[in-house]
């Protein structure tokens, strides 16, 4: 097991490096002189010259990249042009808000999804099943921003339960700042159908029939035998859902005006603060990689077969 985790950790290093290279190259494709792009429109000629020498922009491309890489290793992602502070500092300040949203969102929406999925599987083909399937199919098809906007209109405007600007208003109860985005994630819940189909698949297995034949109670079969086994694909989906929610935060935080990394990134693009765009993108991707890694390790612990299969592919 330890070897497996170590191996997976080792494999994230080239991926992280690749992510950095991609972001580095992409940001440098923006038309215009990199010094001018990085310093913004207000920079003077003298500032641009200083920046050029300081960042080695007058040197060959490969040397420049090497410098950027060296800076990365000491945790220096440059200075933000709109915040006038180191990029990493600005990003880390906003990170807790995004992590909080992702965790609450994924835990609550997964719980609701799993419950609904189990109910649907139990009533296979009957009306509760059909209703749940219809709503979850609709939910997964609705764009996040669309659900979010309606949650805002209904709960902030019509009912006045939550503030329109989630965590910007001082003195708002904690749960109110999370209510809107989390409800949006619940309504978009994509796990219902995964849970239902893996439950149904398990219910067709021989050992369930054996349990039934032995006279095990229906409830025990459902929760212990079926759900226990169906949990492996579900756990995987929850983990990948967590990874995806770091990306989903971009839209959610924009809709609910939450000051997280996603909103920070969108604002940075708007104000052409490219060092911050580069930094925030890199951090979001890093978290996504870590969430995926965590998922693989957890499923590896839950289901040893995956661990072995994973070893072969390396």
């Amino acid at each position: 097991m330890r070897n497996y985790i170590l191996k997976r950790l080792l494999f994230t290093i080239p991926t992280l490096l690749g992510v950095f290279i991609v972001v580095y190259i992409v940001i440098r494709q923006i038309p215009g002189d990199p010094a001018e792009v990085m310093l913004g429109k207000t920079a003077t000629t003298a500032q641009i010259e200083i920046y050029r020498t300081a960042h080695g922009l007058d040197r060959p491309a490969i040397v420049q990249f090497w410098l950027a890489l060296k800076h990365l290793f000491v945790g220096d992602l440059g200075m933000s042009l709109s915040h006038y502070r180191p990029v990493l500092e600005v990003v880390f300040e906003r990170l807790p808000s995004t992590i909080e949203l992702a965790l609450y969102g994924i835990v609550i929406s997964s719980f609701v999804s799993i419950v609904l999925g189990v109910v649907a599987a139990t009533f296979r083909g009957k009306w509760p099943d059909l209703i749940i399937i219809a709503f979850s199919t609709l939910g997964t098809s609705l764009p996040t921003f669309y659900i979010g906007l309606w949650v805002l209109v209904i709960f902030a405007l019509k009912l006045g339960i939550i503030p329109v600007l989630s965590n910007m208003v001082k003195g708002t109860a904690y749960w109110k700042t999370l209510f809107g985005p989390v409800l949006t994630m619940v309504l978009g819940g994509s796990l219902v159908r995964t849970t239902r189909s893996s439950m149904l698949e398990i219910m067709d297995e021989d050992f369930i029939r054996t349990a039934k034949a032995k006279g095990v109670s229906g409830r025990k079969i459902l929760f212990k035998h079926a759900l226990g086994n169906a949990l492996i694909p579900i756990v995987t989906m929850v983990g990948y859902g967590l990874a995806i929610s770091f990306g989903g935060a971009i839209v959610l935080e924009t809709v609910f005006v939450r000051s997280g990394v996603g909103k920070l990134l969108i604002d940075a693009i708007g104000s052409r603060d490219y060092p911050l765009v580069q930094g925030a993108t890199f951090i979001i991707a890093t978290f996504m990689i870590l969430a995926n890694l965590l998922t693989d390790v957890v499923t590896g612990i839950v289901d040893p077969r995956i661990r072995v299969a994973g070893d072969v592919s390396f």
Partner: protein
Amino acid sequence: MRELLRNKFIVIGGSIILIIVIIVVFAPMLTKYDYGAIDLPNKQQAPNAEHIMGTDAYGRDVWCRIVYGGRISLTVAICSTAIAMVFGTLLGTLSGYISGTLDFVLGRIVDVMMAFPMLLLSLIIGIALGSSTRNMFFSIGIPIIPMFYRLSRATTMSIKERSFVTAARSMGSSRWRLILRHIIPNVLPYILVIMSSAMGGAILAESSLGFLGYGIPLPTPSWGLIVNDGRSFMFTYPWTTAFSGAFIALTILGFNLLGDGLRDHMDPKIRTAAR
């Protein structure tokens, strides 16, 4: 074919897509206004007989903008999915067939691409390329490549072990002939199945980019842009966003259902479980 039509998902999803395509293609016959015609005295009207979906903040007919906007959004979805499919399938098939170094290198590149949230990758490719309809094909298409790459790689790896491929090889078929004549035709059905989901994903990406304010530049009304137009007035006048968002959702729903149906159809194990 008859078997295909027996699948409820395929029938419902397919019909939704067909209706939307018909509406979009026959747009000029279904509208009596110009999608750009500004009519300030009649701005932000609720749906009525004259404007069945109301008017936006500039008095433009929303139904008309949605119908014409569908042309842009569907074009973007088709072209970006096509780009993703061609590159993803080709590279995935090569990777699966040749394996070795090529497979390793491409695999790591795909790992890196998948480390980004799709929307984020679209965003940064978009800002690097600059905003235009053609660049949008790439900024939305490139993040979808891994989806096709992984599926075609996995499928190729299982197909190349099958006896008809070995037979063709032993008869002296060249590597390229093998890939083009024997492998790709057998990979394609699987690819076509996920194409539907990819189209839905592309529609979602386009509208999300539009919502975030990084869509196709004015005055072309794409669905994402119409949503964004209405967003500022969401609290006082939600109609514009409501109708354009509903069209986006309906289209994605159609593609998702079609995709689910096709996948069930391809995989008999799921087929029995779903019933």
